[in-house]
């Protein structure tokens, strides 16, 4: 099950709930707070028992102590004070959601995931909700119903009903309520170009009401251009700073634990380069794809981001010029290192479009370069391991 296919921009639970509420999904009242005082005020307005929930882009908030029940408004304020500023899986909590607590008779899972195998959004529902759906999939797959949706037709009422009967085989009222929620969830999924939209848990109260207690939505990166409203929901404080910096420089960057800093054009070649570093006994410090366009500025930004990581011991460029002009890359290296001289060695592999010009530029500026990938990677790994200096 390839859950997360489609790159996704995560938005916070409270934002996802707003989007679902707008489509008519019943959700207990709540609001977001950045201070203990605000949290207390929200809890007072709601009245009764509330839940205070850390808003961070990571799972396991409950286990980490980021989700707590409060009986009174002042208790809600105290709890919020503790949760705000807390670190969960390396992310600082800047906001909490304060929401009415619901009595729970049963919990179900309802999600839509863009699936590459069927080339469709797939509904996935389970009466075993509240826990990690991947655990359900692994241990009791018969408790999961999957239904691919043909987006030319959209989710049909009969399909929503089939999903509803899978959740509540003996109660047509709950089936109707759940079906309506699934129609709304699908609307939200399509309207916002989501790659994932999840309600977990979907609860039934002792009174028989069906409610969404938690929600998660990821937006397809590629569709953001037509959703300026959703771009604003992106919370950069909830992400790794160097990755935010890279994105703002139009680079794709993921920080890893090794010491060989990699700058590559193309995701496939970038992964193959990392694999080759590992193959020769090294550890990549990152994944970094400068993409196809040959803009010296990107190279400058890439170098800045990589050298910002103190664990990086060597920089490895691997550029195969197709659309990317290797002379542009060479110029970028020269410009960046003139402005900020490197304190660690650099290994450059360049081949393809304008290779001769690039080689000359590098040579004129005191760099050497190889046109062989294996050779370059071996050299970089050697430098990272033993220390030393190239260029």
């Amino acid at each position, binding site marked *: 099950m390839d859950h997360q296919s489609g790159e996704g921009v995560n938005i916070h639970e409270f934002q996802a709930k707003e989007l679902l509420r707008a489509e008519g999904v019943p959700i207990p009242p709540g609001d977001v707070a950045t201070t203990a005082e605000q949290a207390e005020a929200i809890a007072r307005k709601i009245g009764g028992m509330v839940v205070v929930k850390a808003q961070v882009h990571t799972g396991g908030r409950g286990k980490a102590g980021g989700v707590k029940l409060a009986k009174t408004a002042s208790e809600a304020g105290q709890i919020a004070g503790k949760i705000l500023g807390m670190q969960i899986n390396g992310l600082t909590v800047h906001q909490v959601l304060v929401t009415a607590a619901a009595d729970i008779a049963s919990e179900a899972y309802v999600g839509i995931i*863009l699936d590459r195998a069927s080339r469709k959004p797939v509904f996935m529902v389970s009466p075993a909700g509240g826990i990690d759906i991947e655990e359900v999939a692994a241990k009791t797959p018969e408790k999961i119903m999957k239904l691919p949706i043909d987006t030319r037709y959209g989710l049909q009422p009969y399909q929503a009903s089939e999903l509803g009967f899978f959740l509540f085989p003996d109660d047509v009222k709950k089936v109707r309520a759940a079906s309506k929620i699934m129609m709304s969830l699908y609307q939200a999924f399509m309207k916002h170009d989501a790659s994932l939209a999840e309600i977990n848990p979907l609860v039934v109260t002792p009174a028989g009401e069906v409610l969404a207690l938690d929600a998660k939505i990821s937006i397809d990166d590629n569709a953001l251009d037509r959703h300026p409203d959703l771009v604003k929901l992106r919370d950069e404080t909830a992400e790794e700073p160097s990755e935010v910096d890279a994105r703002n420089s139009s680079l794709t960057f993921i920080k890893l634990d090794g010491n060989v800093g990699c700058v590559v054009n193309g995701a*496939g070649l970038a992964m193959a380069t990392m694999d080759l570093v590992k193959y020769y006994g090294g550890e990549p410090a990152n994944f970094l794809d400068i993409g196809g366009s040959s803009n010296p500025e990107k190279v400058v930004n890439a170098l800045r981001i990589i050298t910002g990581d103190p664990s990086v011991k060597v920089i490895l460029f691997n550029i195969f010029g197709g659309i990317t002009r290797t002379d542009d890359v060479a110029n970028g290296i020269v410009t960046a290192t003139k402005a900020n001289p490197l304190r660690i060695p650099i290994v450059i592999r360049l081949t*393809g479009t304008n290779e001769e010009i690039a080689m000359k530029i590098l040579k004129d500026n005191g760099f050497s370069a190889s046109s062989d990938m294996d050779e370059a990677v071996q050299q970089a790994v050697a430098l990272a391991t033993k220390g030393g200096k190239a260029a």
Partner: protein
Amino acid sequence: MSIFIDRNSTVIVQGITGRDGSFHTKQMIEYGTRIVGGVTPGKGGQKFDGSVPVFNTVHEAVKATGANTSVIYVPPMYAADAIMEAADAGIAFIVAITEGVPVNDMTRVHPFVKEKGARLLGPNCPGLITPGQSKVGIIPGRICTPGSIGVVSRSGTLTYEVVYQLTRAGMGQSTCVGIGGDPINGTSFIDCLAAFEADPHTSAVAMMGEIGGTDEQEAAEFVRTRMKKPVVGFIAGQTAPPGRRMGHAGAIISGSAGTAAEKLESFEQAGMGIARRPIEFVEQLRARM
């Protein structure tokens, strides 16, 4: 001969007057591709580069030129529309280079193209090249040389790397196809493998996969049950951490499925050769031919 394109393919360029479109059109013409027309709404009647007629719509272009192939360089928000326009106009083979096409768009485009009986390659792909005959897309022509190795890959520059190694080793290619890394694309590994198996001029296939999804496993099953020609496979992303995206939407590991280990295991079970490094394609292919 080759798969999907050859010297007789007549090609139109959608977005011919754009920055990428015009650059790569010149490259294609230089390589020898039969570019018979271009499409840019509002520029109908003009000539691109002094010789290629430009049309307002694909219908007009097809009517005037009889083109059977189209290559698309329009911006991502217009790509789905451009693909559908091409399919509707009767283009049989559509190559969408555009990167960043919203995935939901593709859930509608895919069945549309199928209904029209067309084949789509991409989006978010480098296109394809039949060395010495025709290139459609952005694969650099000079790294290729005619021969009998079929190449199919999910990524761009990694393909170039492997093709470059093959060419250096004297192993020419029948056709090199980049199928693209998007979650929903038009042509799969299996489509290409089937075409290579049927192509009398292809003697072996080099296949470059990535972590994420199950396309490679399905391809391996196809190799095992339906192919006689040798296939050597590679998986990029063995060192990628699980659950993180790697630039391509396809390059994701989630749960137990889609890991490099799993994919390589399926290659082995299919009796395929395995290249641990890009350079190993040369020896692995040589050993099987």
